[in-house]
Protein backbone atom coordinates (compact mmCIF):
# COMPACT_ATOMS: atom_id res chain seq x y z
CA UNK A 1 0.00 0.00 0.00
CA UNK A 2 1.58 3.30 -1.05
CA UNK A 3 5.05 1.97 -0.35
CA UNK A 4 6.67 4.85 -2.20
CA UNK A 5 5.01 7.22 0.27
CA UNK A 6 5.81 5.09 3.30
CA UNK A 7 9.44 5.03 2.15
CA UNK A 8 9.46 8.81 2.68
CA UNK A 9 9.50 8.05 6.40
CA UNK A 10 13.10 6.95 5.90
CA UNK A 11 14.13 10.40 4.63
CA UNK A 12 16.10 12.08 7.37
CA UNK A 13 14.94 15.52 6.18
CA UNK A 14 11.25 14.66 6.59
CA UNK A 15 9.26 15.91 9.57
CA UNK A 16 7.33 13.13 11.27
CA UNK A 17 4.68 13.64 13.91
CA UNK A 18 2.93 10.82 15.72
CA UNK A 19 -0.57 11.54 16.99
CA UNK A 20 -2.13 9.26 19.56
CA UNK A 21 -5.27 9.72 21.64
CA UNK A 22 -5.89 9.22 25.33
CA UNK A 23 -8.90 7.55 26.91
CA UNK A 24 -10.99 10.73 26.51
CA UNK A 25 -10.09 10.97 22.83
CA UNK A 26 -7.82 13.99 23.34
CA UNK A 27 -5.09 13.95 20.70
CA UNK A 28 -1.44 13.97 21.72
CA UNK A 29 1.01 14.93 18.94
CA UNK A 30 4.76 14.46 19.28
CA UNK A 31 7.65 14.70 16.84
CA UNK A 32 9.05 11.21 16.33
CA UNK A 33 12.21 11.44 14.30
CA UNK A 34 12.78 7.70 14.66
CA UNK A 35 9.75 6.75 12.57
CA UNK A 36 10.76 4.55 9.65
CA UNK A 37 9.36 2.06 7.16
CA UNK A 38 11.02 -1.33 7.29
CA UNK A 39 9.99 -4.75 5.94
CA UNK A 40 6.43 -3.61 5.29
CA UNK A 41 5.91 -2.19 8.77
CA UNK A 42 6.23 1.19 10.38
CA UNK A 43 8.58 1.28 13.35
CA UNK A 44 9.46 3.95 15.86
CA UNK A 45 11.49 4.19 19.04
CA UNK A 46 9.88 5.07 22.34
CA UNK A 47 12.50 6.44 24.70
CA UNK A 48 10.28 7.23 27.67
CA UNK A 49 8.41 4.39 29.37
CA UNK A 50 6.09 6.80 31.17
CA UNK A 51 5.36 9.11 28.24
CA UNK A 52 1.82 9.96 27.24
CA UNK A 53 2.37 8.62 23.74
CA UNK A 54 3.64 5.30 25.14
CA UNK A 55 0.62 5.01 27.39
CA UNK A 56 -1.71 5.99 24.55
CA UNK A 57 -0.07 3.53 22.18
CA UNK A 58 -0.39 0.74 24.74
CA UNK A 59 -4.07 1.51 25.10
CA UNK A 60 -4.43 1.64 21.32
CA UNK A 61 -2.99 -1.87 21.07
CA UNK A 62 -5.12 -3.12 23.93
CA UNK A 63 -8.39 -1.60 22.71
CA UNK A 64 -7.86 -1.85 18.96
CA UNK A 65 -7.55 1.86 18.33
CA UNK A 66 -5.52 3.75 15.79
CA UNK A 67 -2.80 6.36 15.60
CA UNK A 68 -1.97 8.85 12.90
CA UNK A 69 1.39 9.88 11.54
CA UNK A 70 1.72 13.30 9.95
CA UNK A 71 4.50 13.22 7.41
CA UNK A 72 5.92 16.41 5.87
CA UNK A 73 8.27 15.27 3.13
CA UNK A 74 11.34 17.25 2.11
CA UNK A 75 9.55 18.26 -1.13
CA UNK A 76 6.79 19.86 1.01
CA UNK A 77 4.18 17.25 0.24
CA UNK A 78 2.29 16.14 3.36
CA UNK A 79 0.50 12.92 4.16
CA UNK A 80 -1.55 11.43 6.97
CA UNK A 81 -0.79 7.78 7.59
CA UNK A 82 -3.38 5.99 9.72
CA UNK A 83 -1.90 2.98 11.45
CA UNK A 84 -2.61 0.55 14.24
CA UNK A 85 -0.08 -0.81 16.72
CA UNK A 86 0.75 -4.43 15.95
CA UNK A 87 3.45 -5.14 18.49
CA UNK A 88 5.52 -3.60 21.27
CA UNK A 89 9.06 -4.97 21.31
CA UNK A 90 10.85 -4.71 24.65
CA UNK A 91 12.96 -7.85 24.66
CA UNK A 92 14.65 -10.48 22.42
CA UNK A 93 17.51 -9.98 20.02
CA UNK A 94 15.30 -7.80 17.82
CA UNK A 95 15.02 -5.29 20.66
CA UNK A 96 18.75 -5.47 21.24
CA UNK A 97 19.39 -4.38 17.67
CA UNK A 98 17.11 -1.38 18.10
CA UNK A 99 18.58 -0.62 21.52
CA UNK A 100 22.10 -0.51 20.16
CA UNK A 101 21.03 1.70 17.28
CA UNK A 102 19.18 4.06 19.63
CA UNK A 103 22.18 4.32 21.93
CA UNK A 104 24.51 5.06 19.05
CA UNK A 105 22.32 7.45 17.10
CA UNK A 106 20.47 9.27 19.86
CA UNK A 107 22.55 8.55 22.97
CA UNK A 108 19.51 7.63 25.06
CA UNK A 109 18.17 4.50 26.73
CA UNK A 110 15.39 2.82 24.77
CA UNK A 111 12.12 1.78 26.38
CA UNK A 112 10.39 0.08 23.45
CA UNK A 113 10.30 -0.29 19.70
CA UNK A 114 6.71 -0.03 18.43
CA UNK A 115 5.68 -1.80 15.26
CA UNK A 116 2.68 -0.32 13.47
CA UNK A 117 0.67 -1.67 10.61
CA UNK A 118 -0.26 1.01 8.04
CA UNK A 119 -3.96 1.10 7.22
CA UNK A 120 -4.57 4.16 5.07
CA UNK A 121 -2.63 7.00 3.49
CA UNK A 122 -4.20 10.33 2.49
CA UNK A 123 -2.39 13.25 0.94
CA UNK A 124 -2.88 16.63 2.58
CA UNK A 125 -0.48 18.77 0.58
CA UNK A 126 -2.21 22.15 0.30
CA UNK A 127 -2.16 22.44 -3.48
CA UNK A 128 -3.32 18.85 -3.88
CA UNK A 129 -6.24 19.22 -1.47
CA UNK A 130 -7.43 22.53 -2.85
CA UNK A 131 -7.33 21.27 -6.41
CA UNK A 132 -9.11 18.09 -5.42
CA UNK A 133 -11.91 19.98 -3.70
CA UNK A 134 -12.28 22.53 -6.45
CA UNK A 135 -12.94 19.77 -8.95
CA UNK A 136 -15.15 17.60 -6.77
CA UNK A 137 -17.19 20.26 -4.93
CA UNK A 138 -17.77 23.02 -7.52
CA UNK A 139 -20.18 24.98 -5.30
CA UNK A 140 -17.24 25.75 -3.00
CA UNK A 141 -15.54 27.89 -5.67
CA UNK A 142 -15.92 31.67 -5.67
CA UNK A 143 -17.53 32.86 -8.87
CA UNK A 144 -15.01 35.60 -9.59
CA UNK A 145 -12.40 32.90 -10.04
CA UNK A 146 -14.59 31.34 -12.67
CA UNK A 147 -15.35 34.57 -14.54
CA UNK A 148 -14.68 34.56 -18.31
CA UNK A 149 -14.46 37.35 -20.92
CA UNK A 150 -16.34 40.37 -19.82
CA UNK A 151 -19.71 40.67 -21.51
CA UNK A 152 -20.69 44.13 -22.54
CA UNK A 153 -24.08 45.31 -23.30
Amino acid at each position, binding site marked *: MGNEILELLNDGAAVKILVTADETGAPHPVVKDSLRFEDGKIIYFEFCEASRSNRNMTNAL*WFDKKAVILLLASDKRSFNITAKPARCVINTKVF*QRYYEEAREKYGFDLSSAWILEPLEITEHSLGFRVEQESRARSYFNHLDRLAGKEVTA
Partner: protein
Amino acid sequence: MSALSFDEVAAKYPQFPRLVLLKTDLHRRGVYYTDKALSSLDPDRHQTGGTHIFGTRDGKLTQRPEALILRDGASVLTTSTPLEEDPYIVDFTDGRLMVLDKGKELEEVFFWDKPDYYGKRTSKGVLMQNVIGARPQRLYITPNRFCFFWSDEGGGGCQFCDIVNNLKQQRAEIEMQTRLDPQDIAETVAEALKEPGRFTAVFLTSGSDYRGKTPFDSEIDFYIDVLKAIGRNFAIKKFPSQILCSAVRKDQLQRLYDETGVTSVTMDIEVLDERLFNIICPGKAKWVGYHEWKKRLVDAVEIFGPNRVGTGVVAGVELAGPFGFPSEDEALAAVLGEAEELAAGGVSSVVQVWQARAGSKLGKGRRKISLEYYARLALGFQALRRKYGLEIDFDDYRRCGNHPDSDLARGL
Protein backbone atom coordinates in the same frame (compact mmCIF):
# COMPACT_ATOMS: atom_id res chain seq x y z
CA MET B 1 -24.57 -19.86 39.52
CA SER B 2 -21.84 -20.83 37.06
CA ALA B 3 -18.86 -18.60 36.48
CA LEU B 4 -18.77 -16.22 33.53
CA SER B 5 -16.87 -17.29 30.45
CA PHE B 6 -13.84 -15.37 29.17
CA ASP B 7 -15.92 -13.44 26.64
CA GLU B 8 -18.56 -12.67 29.25
CA VAL B 9 -15.96 -11.29 31.65
CA ALA B 10 -14.43 -9.24 28.84
CA ALA B 11 -17.84 -7.82 27.97
CA LYS B 12 -18.74 -7.10 31.59
CA TYR B 13 -15.44 -5.30 32.26
CA PRO B 14 -14.63 -3.47 29.00
CA GLN B 15 -12.05 -1.36 30.80
CA PHE B 16 -9.97 -4.52 31.35
CA PRO B 17 -7.79 -5.11 28.25
CA ARG B 18 -8.49 -8.47 26.62
CA LEU B 19 -4.79 -9.19 26.28
CA VAL B 20 -4.18 -8.73 30.01
CA LEU B 21 -7.32 -10.74 30.72
CA LEU B 22 -5.93 -13.55 28.58
CA LYS B 23 -2.64 -13.39 30.47
CA THR B 24 -4.58 -13.63 33.73
CA ASP B 25 -6.49 -16.66 32.47
CA LEU B 26 -3.34 -18.31 31.15
CA HIS B 27 -2.06 -18.11 34.72
CA ARG B 28 -5.36 -19.33 36.14
CA ARG B 29 -5.89 -22.32 33.86
CA GLY B 30 -2.32 -23.04 32.83
CA VAL B 31 -1.06 -24.07 29.42
CA TYR B 32 -0.39 -27.31 27.64
CA TYR B 33 2.26 -27.32 24.92
CA THR B 34 1.58 -29.60 21.98
CA ASP B 35 4.39 -31.65 20.48
CA LYS B 36 4.47 -29.29 17.50
CA ALA B 37 4.84 -26.30 19.80
CA LEU B 38 7.67 -28.00 21.66
CA SER B 39 9.33 -28.93 18.37
CA SER B 40 9.38 -25.26 17.39
CA LEU B 41 11.29 -24.46 20.57
CA ASP B 42 15.00 -24.05 19.84
CA PRO B 43 16.96 -24.88 23.02
CA ASP B 44 19.99 -23.10 21.56
CA ARG B 45 18.04 -19.90 21.29
CA HIS B 46 14.98 -19.99 23.53
CA GLN B 47 14.83 -20.07 27.28
CA THR B 48 13.48 -23.21 28.85
CA GLY B 49 12.23 -23.69 32.38
CA GLY B 50 13.35 -25.75 35.32
CA THR B 51 15.38 -23.28 37.36
CA HIS B 52 12.44 -21.43 38.87
CA ILE B 53 12.09 -21.43 42.65
CA PHE B 54 8.65 -23.04 42.37
CA GLY B 55 7.68 -26.14 40.46
CA THR B 56 5.13 -26.90 37.78
CA ARG B 57 1.56 -28.06 37.89
CA ASP B 58 2.45 -31.40 36.38
CA GLY B 59 5.53 -31.87 38.55
CA LYS B 60 7.94 -32.27 35.65
CA LEU B 61 11.18 -30.34 35.09
CA THR B 62 11.61 -31.32 31.45
CA GLN B 63 12.78 -28.72 28.96
CA ARG B 64 9.74 -26.70 28.19
CA PRO B 65 9.37 -22.99 27.59
CA GLU B 66 9.73 -20.93 30.73
CA ALA B 67 7.31 -18.39 29.41
CA LEU B 68 5.67 -16.73 26.45
CA ILE B 69 5.67 -13.18 25.15
CA LEU B 70 2.52 -11.41 24.05
CA ARG B 71 2.35 -8.83 21.28
CA ASP B 72 2.15 -5.99 23.80
CA GLY B 73 5.59 -7.06 25.03
CA ALA B 74 4.33 -8.54 28.28
CA SER B 75 5.55 -11.95 29.37
CA VAL B 76 3.49 -14.81 30.73
CA LEU B 77 5.22 -17.26 33.01
CA THR B 78 3.72 -20.60 32.20
CA THR B 79 3.43 -23.78 34.21
CA SER B 80 2.85 -26.84 32.13
CA THR B 81 -0.52 -28.22 33.08
CA PRO B 82 -2.04 -31.67 32.51
CA LEU B 83 -4.79 -31.80 29.87
CA GLU B 84 -7.36 -33.09 32.34
CA GLU B 85 -7.19 -29.73 34.14
CA ASP B 86 -8.53 -27.92 31.04
CA PRO B 87 -5.59 -25.64 30.27
CA TYR B 88 -5.16 -23.41 27.25
CA ILE B 89 -3.34 -25.09 24.38
CA VAL B 90 -0.19 -23.68 22.81
CA ASP B 91 0.33 -25.05 19.30
CA PHE B 92 2.45 -24.27 16.28
CA THR B 93 0.44 -23.84 13.06
CA ASP B 94 1.22 -22.16 9.72
CA GLY B 95 4.54 -20.96 11.04
CA ARG B 96 3.07 -19.25 14.11
CA LEU B 97 2.93 -20.10 17.76
CA MET B 98 -0.68 -19.73 18.85
CA VAL B 99 -2.77 -19.92 21.99
CA LEU B 100 -5.97 -21.86 21.45
CA ASP B 101 -9.01 -22.68 23.51
CA LYS B 102 -11.52 -25.34 22.51
CA GLY B 103 -9.91 -25.44 19.07
CA LYS B 104 -10.25 -21.70 18.44
CA GLU B 105 -7.13 -19.63 17.79
CA LEU B 106 -6.95 -16.69 20.17
CA GLU B 107 -3.62 -14.97 20.07
CA GLU B 108 -0.17 -15.26 18.55
CA VAL B 109 2.59 -15.64 21.14
CA PHE B 110 6.36 -15.87 21.05
CA PHE B 111 9.07 -17.69 22.93
CA TRP B 112 11.68 -15.54 24.53
CA ASP B 113 15.40 -15.65 23.86
CA LYS B 114 17.61 -16.95 26.59
CA PRO B 115 20.32 -14.56 27.70
CA ASP B 116 23.86 -14.91 26.41
CA TYR B 117 25.21 -16.02 29.79
CA TYR B 118 23.13 -19.20 29.79
CA GLY B 119 25.31 -22.24 29.24
CA LYS B 120 28.39 -20.54 30.67
CA ARG B 121 29.99 -21.48 33.98
CA THR B 122 31.51 -19.48 36.82
CA SER B 123 35.16 -19.79 37.82
CA LYS B 124 34.08 -22.50 40.26
CA GLY B 125 32.34 -24.44 37.49
CA VAL B 126 28.74 -23.63 38.44
CA LEU B 127 26.26 -23.29 35.58
CA MET B 128 25.36 -19.61 35.42
CA GLN B 129 21.68 -20.25 34.68
CA ASN B 130 21.51 -22.12 37.98
CA VAL B 131 22.95 -19.08 39.71
CA ILE B 132 20.70 -16.51 38.07
CA GLY B 133 17.55 -17.29 36.16
CA ALA B 134 16.32 -14.70 33.72
CA ARG B 135 13.05 -13.03 33.02
CA PRO B 136 12.99 -10.98 29.80
CA GLN B 137 14.17 -7.91 31.67
CA ARG B 138 15.09 -9.11 35.14
CA LEU B 139 17.97 -10.98 36.73
CA TYR B 140 16.26 -13.46 39.06
CA ILE B 141 18.53 -14.52 41.91
CA THR B 142 17.63 -17.07 44.59
CA PRO B 143 20.56 -17.12 47.02
CA ASN B 144 18.95 -19.72 49.26
CA ARG B 145 16.34 -22.16 48.00
CA PHE B 146 15.48 -23.81 51.32
CA CYS B 147 12.67 -22.34 53.36
CA PHE B 148 13.25 -22.83 57.06
CA PHE B 149 9.55 -22.62 57.80
CA TRP B 150 9.51 -26.20 56.49
CA SER B 151 11.97 -27.34 59.17
CA ASP B 152 11.08 -28.79 62.57
CA GLU B 153 11.07 -25.45 64.38
CA GLY B 154 9.66 -23.59 61.39
CA GLY B 155 6.00 -23.80 62.17
CA GLY B 156 5.11 -25.09 58.73
CA GLY B 157 5.54 -23.98 55.15
CA CYS B 158 2.85 -22.03 53.33
CA GLN B 159 0.23 -24.47 52.11
CA PHE B 160 0.26 -23.27 48.48
CA CYS B 161 4.05 -23.48 48.24
CA ASP B 162 6.21 -26.31 46.89
CA ILE B 163 9.61 -24.65 47.33
CA VAL B 164 11.29 -27.47 49.25
CA ASN B 165 9.82 -30.32 47.22
CA ASN B 166 10.81 -28.48 44.06
CA LEU B 167 14.35 -27.99 45.40
CA LYS B 168 14.72 -31.71 46.05
CA GLN B 169 13.74 -32.44 42.49
CA GLN B 170 16.01 -29.73 41.05
CA ARG B 171 18.99 -31.00 43.03
CA ALA B 172 18.42 -34.49 41.75
CA GLU B 173 17.75 -33.59 38.11
CA ILE B 174 19.60 -30.38 37.17
CA GLU B 175 22.49 -29.98 39.66
CA MET B 176 20.76 -27.08 41.40
CA GLN B 177 22.49 -25.75 44.54
CA THR B 178 20.62 -25.04 47.75
CA ARG B 179 22.72 -22.04 48.72
CA LEU B 180 24.68 -19.85 46.34
CA ASP B 181 28.17 -18.47 46.69
CA PRO B 182 28.15 -14.64 46.43
CA GLN B 183 31.22 -14.85 44.21
CA ASP B 184 29.33 -16.99 41.69
CA ILE B 185 26.52 -14.44 41.76
CA ALA B 186 28.92 -11.53 41.19
CA GLU B 187 30.53 -13.29 38.21
CA THR B 188 27.18 -14.14 36.66
CA VAL B 189 25.90 -10.58 37.00
CA ALA B 190 29.09 -9.33 35.35
CA GLU B 191 28.51 -11.69 32.44
CA ALA B 192 24.83 -10.74 32.17
CA LEU B 193 25.60 -7.03 31.97
CA LYS B 194 27.64 -7.59 28.83
CA GLU B 195 24.40 -8.07 26.88
CA PRO B 196 23.19 -4.61 25.80
CA GLY B 197 19.56 -3.72 26.49
CA ARG B 198 18.66 -7.02 28.05
CA PHE B 199 18.11 -6.35 31.76
CA THR B 200 16.58 -3.51 33.70
CA ALA B 201 16.49 -4.83 37.28
CA VAL B 202 18.07 -7.18 39.77
CA PHE B 203 15.71 -9.29 41.85
CA LEU B 204 16.47 -11.44 44.87
CA THR B 205 14.28 -13.86 46.74
CA SER B 206 14.92 -16.86 48.95
CA GLY B 207 13.26 -19.24 51.27
CA SER B 208 12.78 -17.65 54.68
CA ASP B 209 15.59 -18.05 57.22
CA TYR B 210 14.58 -17.13 60.77
CA ARG B 211 17.89 -18.24 62.29
CA GLY B 212 20.37 -15.91 63.96
CA LYS B 213 21.00 -14.06 67.19
CA THR B 214 17.59 -12.49 66.67
CA PRO B 215 15.02 -13.85 64.22
CA PHE B 216 15.95 -13.36 60.56
CA ASP B 217 19.47 -12.04 61.27
CA SER B 218 20.84 -14.92 59.23
CA GLU B 219 18.59 -14.05 56.27
CA ILE B 220 19.52 -10.38 56.30
CA ASP B 221 23.25 -11.07 56.78
CA PHE B 222 23.29 -13.33 53.75
CA TYR B 223 21.29 -10.91 51.60
CA ILE B 224 23.75 -8.14 52.51
CA ASP B 225 26.71 -10.32 51.47
CA VAL B 226 25.01 -11.15 48.19
CA LEU B 227 23.95 -7.58 47.41
CA LYS B 228 27.44 -6.28 48.14
CA ALA B 229 28.87 -8.83 45.72
CA ILE B 230 26.34 -7.78 43.06
CA GLY B 231 27.05 -4.11 43.73
CA ARG B 232 30.70 -4.51 42.75
CA ASN B 233 29.48 -4.66 39.14
CA PHE B 234 27.93 -1.19 39.16
CA ALA B 235 29.44 2.26 38.90
CA ILE B 236 26.73 3.67 41.18
CA LYS B 237 25.85 2.67 44.73
CA LYS B 238 22.10 2.22 44.29
CA PHE B 239 21.02 0.11 41.30
CA PRO B 240 17.44 -0.75 40.18
CA SER B 241 16.61 -3.74 42.31
CA GLN B 242 13.99 -5.50 44.35
CA ILE B 243 14.42 -7.78 47.30
CA LEU B 244 11.63 -10.14 48.28
CA CYS B 245 12.36 -11.10 51.85
CA SER B 246 10.68 -12.13 55.08
CA ALA B 247 8.98 -9.34 57.03
CA VAL B 248 12.04 -8.35 59.00
CA ARG B 249 12.30 -5.64 61.64
CA LYS B 250 12.81 -1.99 60.82
CA ASP B 251 16.42 -1.98 62.10
CA GLN B 252 17.21 -4.99 59.88
CA LEU B 253 15.68 -3.24 56.89
CA GLN B 254 17.67 -0.12 57.70
CA ARG B 255 20.89 -2.16 57.63
CA LEU B 256 19.87 -3.73 54.34
CA TYR B 257 19.18 -0.30 52.83
CA ASP B 258 22.25 1.47 54.23
CA GLU B 259 24.81 -1.22 53.49
CA THR B 260 23.75 -2.30 49.99
CA GLY B 261 22.53 -0.98 46.64
CA VAL B 262 18.99 -2.35 46.95
CA THR B 263 16.25 0.16 46.09
CA SER B 264 12.93 -1.57 46.83
CA VAL B 265 11.56 -4.21 49.14
CA THR B 266 8.68 -6.63 48.91
CA MET B 267 7.54 -8.77 51.82
CA ASP B 268 4.80 -11.10 50.65
CA ILE B 269 1.95 -11.40 53.11
CA GLU B 270 0.37 -14.02 50.78
CA VAL B 271 -3.20 -13.72 52.06
CA LEU B 272 -4.89 -10.55 53.30
CA ASP B 273 -6.92 -11.98 56.14
CA GLU B 274 -5.63 -12.75 59.61
CA ARG B 275 -7.56 -15.97 60.21
CA LEU B 276 -6.55 -17.43 56.86
CA PHE B 277 -2.96 -16.18 57.20
CA ASN B 278 -2.65 -18.21 60.41
CA ILE B 279 -3.98 -21.33 58.69
CA ILE B 280 -2.29 -21.07 55.30
CA CYS B 281 1.05 -19.60 56.40
CA PRO B 282 1.73 -21.11 59.84
CA GLY B 283 5.48 -20.45 59.71
CA LYS B 284 4.97 -16.75 58.92
CA ALA B 285 2.32 -16.59 61.63
CA LYS B 286 4.66 -18.14 64.19
CA TRP B 287 7.74 -16.06 63.46
CA VAL B 288 6.14 -12.70 62.62
CA GLY B 289 2.34 -12.66 62.89
CA TYR B 290 -0.23 -11.01 60.68
CA HIS B 291 -0.49 -7.57 62.28
CA GLU B 292 3.24 -7.33 62.82
CA TRP B 293 3.75 -8.22 59.13
CA LYS B 294 1.51 -5.34 58.11
CA LYS B 295 3.25 -2.97 60.51
CA ARG B 296 6.66 -3.91 59.12
CA LEU B 297 5.46 -3.22 55.59
CA VAL B 298 4.45 0.30 56.54
CA ASP B 299 7.71 0.74 58.48
CA ALA B 300 9.58 -0.13 55.29
CA VAL B 301 8.11 2.91 53.54
CA GLU B 302 9.99 5.17 55.97
CA ILE B 303 13.25 3.56 54.87
CA PHE B 304 12.77 2.84 51.17
CA GLY B 305 10.46 5.71 50.44
CA PRO B 306 7.09 5.77 48.72
CA ASN B 307 6.67 3.74 45.52
CA ARG B 308 9.31 1.28 46.65
CA VAL B 309 7.50 -1.10 49.02
CA GLY B 310 5.19 -3.91 48.02
CA THR B 311 3.52 -7.06 49.17
CA GLY B 312 2.28 -9.96 47.09
CA VAL B 313 -0.80 -12.06 47.59
CA VAL B 314 -1.35 -15.52 46.22
CA ALA B 315 -4.74 -14.56 44.94
CA GLY B 316 -7.29 -17.30 45.24
CA VAL B 317 -5.97 -19.12 48.30
CA GLU B 318 -8.40 -17.06 50.38
CA LEU B 319 -11.13 -19.17 48.75
CA ALA B 320 -9.36 -22.50 49.13
CA GLY B 321 -10.23 -25.51 51.18
CA PRO B 322 -12.87 -25.81 53.89
CA PHE B 323 -11.47 -22.74 55.65
CA GLY B 324 -11.70 -20.23 52.80
CA PHE B 325 -14.24 -17.46 52.37
CA PRO B 326 -17.62 -18.92 51.40
CA SER B 327 -18.05 -16.57 48.43
CA GLU B 328 -15.95 -14.55 46.04
CA ASP B 329 -17.81 -11.35 46.96
CA GLU B 330 -16.90 -11.75 50.63
CA ALA B 331 -13.30 -12.59 49.79
CA LEU B 332 -12.98 -9.60 47.49
CA ALA B 333 -14.38 -7.16 50.03
CA ALA B 334 -12.07 -8.45 52.74
CA VAL B 335 -8.93 -8.49 50.63
CA LEU B 336 -9.50 -5.05 49.11
CA GLY B 337 -10.21 -3.62 52.53
CA GLU B 338 -6.89 -4.83 53.87
CA ALA B 339 -5.08 -3.77 50.70
CA GLU B 340 -6.49 -0.26 51.05
CA GLU B 341 -5.19 0.00 54.59
CA LEU B 342 -1.72 -0.89 53.30
CA ALA B 343 -2.00 1.47 50.32
CA ALA B 344 -2.86 4.34 52.65
CA GLY B 345 0.45 3.56 54.38
CA GLY B 346 2.36 3.66 51.06
CA VAL B 347 2.45 -0.08 50.41
CA SER B 348 1.41 -1.51 47.04
CA SER B 349 -0.26 -4.91 46.89
CA VAL B 350 0.14 -7.09 43.81
CA VAL B 351 -1.75 -10.11 42.57
CA GLN B 352 -0.07 -13.40 41.86
CA VAL B 353 -2.64 -15.76 40.41
CA TRP B 354 -2.62 -18.93 42.46
CA GLN B 355 -1.30 -21.81 40.37
CA ALA B 356 -1.74 -25.05 42.22
CA ARG B 357 1.46 -26.98 42.12
CA ALA B 358 1.87 -30.72 42.41
CA GLY B 359 4.29 -30.50 45.34
CA SER B 360 2.19 -28.22 47.55
CA LYS B 361 -0.31 -29.10 50.28
CA LEU B 362 -3.13 -27.22 48.59
CA GLY B 363 -2.22 -28.70 45.23
CA LYS B 364 -4.89 -31.32 45.31
CA GLY B 365 -8.64 -30.89 45.01
CA ARG B 366 -8.61 -27.13 44.89
CA ARG B 367 -11.66 -25.05 44.22
CA LYS B 368 -11.89 -23.34 40.86
CA ILE B 369 -11.59 -19.60 41.22
CA SER B 370 -13.45 -17.62 38.57
CA LEU B 371 -11.73 -15.38 36.05
CA GLU B 372 -14.12 -12.64 37.06
CA TYR B 373 -12.73 -12.74 40.60
CA TYR B 374 -9.22 -12.14 39.33
CA ALA B 375 -10.38 -9.35 37.03
CA ARG B 376 -12.15 -7.57 39.88
CA LEU B 377 -9.18 -8.04 42.18
CA ALA B 378 -6.66 -6.77 39.64
CA LEU B 379 -8.82 -3.73 38.85
CA GLY B 380 -9.22 -3.14 42.58
CA PHE B 381 -5.50 -3.22 43.31
CA GLN B 382 -4.67 -0.90 40.43
CA ALA B 383 -7.47 1.46 41.48
CA LEU B 384 -5.92 1.62 44.96
CA ARG B 385 -2.57 2.57 43.47
CA ARG B 386 -4.20 5.38 41.52
CA LYS B 387 -6.15 6.56 44.55
CA TYR B 388 -3.06 6.73 46.74
CA GLY B 389 -0.63 7.84 44.03
CA LEU B 390 1.54 4.72 44.17
CA GLU B 391 3.88 3.79 41.33
CA ILE B 392 4.81 0.16 40.76
CA ASP B 393 7.85 0.52 38.48
CA PHE B 394 9.87 -1.93 40.59
CA ASP B 395 7.33 -4.75 40.15
CA ASP B 396 5.66 -3.94 36.84
CA TYR B 397 5.16 -5.80 33.59
CA ARG B 398 8.83 -5.54 32.66
CA ARG B 399 10.60 -5.83 36.00
CA CYS B 400 8.46 -8.82 36.96
CA GLY B 401 5.62 -9.68 34.58
CA ASN B 402 3.81 -11.99 36.98
CA HIS B 403 1.06 -9.63 38.20
CA PRO B 404 -1.92 -8.82 35.98
CA ASP B 405 -2.75 -5.78 38.11
CA SER B 406 0.64 -4.19 37.63
CA ASP B 407 0.36 -4.83 33.89
CA LEU B 408 -2.70 -2.57 34.02
CA ALA B 409 -0.50 0.23 35.36
CA ARG B 410 0.92 0.64 31.85
CA GLY B 411 -2.28 2.07 30.51
CA LEU B 412 -4.86 2.62 33.22
